């Protein structure tokens, strides 16, 4: 080995040394960040997006702002709260006749089915295939009824995006992350907490 080669080896050693040092520093910072994050907030819980029906103002953006063409938000019927009214504010247009013709229906896709049970009660069932999450019925029900129709994010459709694109445009901050163990916020006795 001649002199030149030696000096070259030395040079490489120095470079290796620096490289090792920086690598150690970078490694420590990555692991440190991870550890800090873990200690600070990671709970081992997973979260999904959900709408709080008490905050929802039925603005209609859920139908248009989901990343999916078919919004993952659909109307869910909390039957527990339903008054089974003949005149349903969620089903009929204001001032309409109580007939099931399209001219009287509020739902633009006719996704609500009305079924007679017994005098004077009617059941309202949502056809989820047709529902587009426009919240018209929810608004109607909130204004004139018991608020038994809720908008909810359907987890079979939701892609659980890192940032829900509806949440970022929701005017009332009604969409938030909820624990995956309790993925729906439906009022009535389905949930443990009764509204106050």
């Amino acid at each position, binding site marked *: 080995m001649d002199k030149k080669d030696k000096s070259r080896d030395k040079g490489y050693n120095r470079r290796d040394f620096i490289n090792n040092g920086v690598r150690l520093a970078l490694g420590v910072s990555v692991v440190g960040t991870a550890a800090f994050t873990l200690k600070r907030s990671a709970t081992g819980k997973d979260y999904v997006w959900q709408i709080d029906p008490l905050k929802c103002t039925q603005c209609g953006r859920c139908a248009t702002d989901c990343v999916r063409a078919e919004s993952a938000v659909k109307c869910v019927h909390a039957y527990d709260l339903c008054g089974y009214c003949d005149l349903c504010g969620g089903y009929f*247009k204001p001032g309409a006749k109580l007939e099931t013709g*399209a*001219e009287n229906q509020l739902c*633009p896709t006719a996704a609500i089915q009305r079924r007679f049970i017994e005098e004077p009660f009617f059941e309202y069932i949502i056809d989820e295939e047709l529902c587009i999450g426009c919240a018209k019925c929810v608004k109607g029900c909130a204004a004139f009824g018991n608020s038994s129709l809720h908008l909810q994010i359907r987890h079979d459709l939701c892609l659980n995006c890192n940032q829900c694109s509806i949440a970022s445009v929701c005017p009332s901050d009604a969409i938030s992350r909820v624990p995956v163990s309790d993925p729906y916020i439906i009022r009535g006795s389905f949930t443990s907490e009764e509204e106050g």
Partner: protein
Amino acid sequence: MDQEQKIELAHRVALISGIFCGVVALLLILNFWHMKQHEPLESKTIEALVERLASEPGNEELKEEIRSFDLLARKAYFTSRWQVKTGTWLMLIGGIVLAVSLKIYTDLRARIEEPGKVTEELLRGRANAQYWLMMAGGLILGLALVAGFLTNDYLKEYQEMGVVAETGQDQGDVEVIELFPAQDAGTEASDEAVETEPVAEMNSETDIEAATDEASDGEPSGAQVKAATTQVRFNREDFKKNQATFRGYMGLGISYHKNIPEAWNGSTGENIKWKVASSKPGYSSPVIWGDKIFISGGDAQSRVVTCYNRHTGQLLWEKEVTGIAGSPASPPRVTDDTGLAAPTMAVDGNRVYAIFATGDVVAFDMNGNQVWGRNLGVPNNHYGHSSSLQVWDNKVLVQYDTNSKGRMLALNSATGETVWDVERPVHISWASPALIEVEGKIQVVTTADPYVSGHDLETGAELWKVEAMMGEVGASVAYGDGLVFATNEYARLVAVEPKPDAEYTWENDEYLAEASSPVAYNGLLYTATSYGVLVCYDTKTGEKKFEKEFNDGFYSSPMIADGKLYIMDMGGVTHILKADATGTIIAEPELGEEGFAVPAFADGVIYIRGEEHLYCIGK
């Protein structure tokens, strides 16, 4: 298959799949555009048809039409959704085929290139990189800087207003204590006087008292001018004699003067004793005390209070409102139809009090020396603050409902210190407080969205409230026959008994005033709308007595004087009617210029502030 054929095949496949992808993409875009354009679920046609159906409910044909349209719309929507789904799958498959065939095509055609072409000289490349990095970095930082400088920090502006309000309040208090010991002594002295001779309080004679010598001795050496040396003791009769506040005695729109002129003409000068041009614009009304008449005005440069001799029109003094701690450097944005000096002043014989849209409240003595001034916090008001002041005994009452919060304050008239300051659950309003006397106690009655409420004069405590108003309340209340009347456009006209758990005695929403306040007199309630209708109701029942439509709308409020109702429309024409259930028109004299203020009455004369001038009318 040889190489050439393979290339040819790959080329063809790529071409076909490329065209396929392009067509599908085009169709998808067309579909997207079409849906955006038509939005079948929000169809206007159906909406229009349904509306028509509401007017002809029996029309079966129309129903059928709606149903078929609805079906069509839903079909269009779901078909389009299916198209998008199918289209994307086709795109994906086409895209994969295209990519693979292109890859094969280019790979097959690729030739091994001759090595050794150094495309770039290293040093030169590095130098270029440095140059462009610096350029790009500089550009980005520069843009950020420009953006930073060009952005207006509204939040900070807004908060500074708030901070100003707080510090202004503190400093105001401190200033008063430090600079006006004379004032304190004066008030103490008068307090003593009250204690020693309580009967004097109710005495109808004007009681003028010289300030004590100690007060004069304790004069501060500062630049501030010394306080008034004479004190007028509070006395109701003085307030009946002088139209000292907005809409006269207690702010209820009734004057106790007689012999008021019925004919004049501003253009020809008929019956005009004098007229002066106001130095600054202002929608506030003139107020009177003794021989003096006061008006306020303001523009972006300054706000002024002006005092004239009311018999001659001679300018006695005019003072700019300056040196108030916490006053904003530039006035807040107001609209032209409100301006900076819309609230009417109040005067009590000792001092004249003025408030401006800047949030400045100021008191001058009768000789024009500023006694105190403070800023209540620049009001967050999108037209401009316009609630007028009321004064009673030793309190100046300020209704201060802004977009930030609803507030009602009473200030010590001698020092400007806060006597009470209550927060109210109401939205912004432009109405002025009025005073009523119920069971021997004075209440301050205010109206705002949504409550009409009465407050205790001494503590500000809410005595009663009723939810009646909505929107932007501009008209103040009227009071008569034990009922409070409040009205606002788009809300309702209500009669309410001022007591806890108050309810509407009657309500009406046929004619609603926007800015003009109602007035109750002799069992009749008069109210005027901004579209020129004057209506009269029975105060007890709400039964309509008459309605009269005029050519011009009313912003100015009606005043009752000498059994007649005076109301000026926006064109400056004053309509004088008999204040009875017939409303016979007596005369309709013209001012010759536009007018929005409430006229002020004195014995034998009427003062009207027009857009440009202040007129004294009388023989």
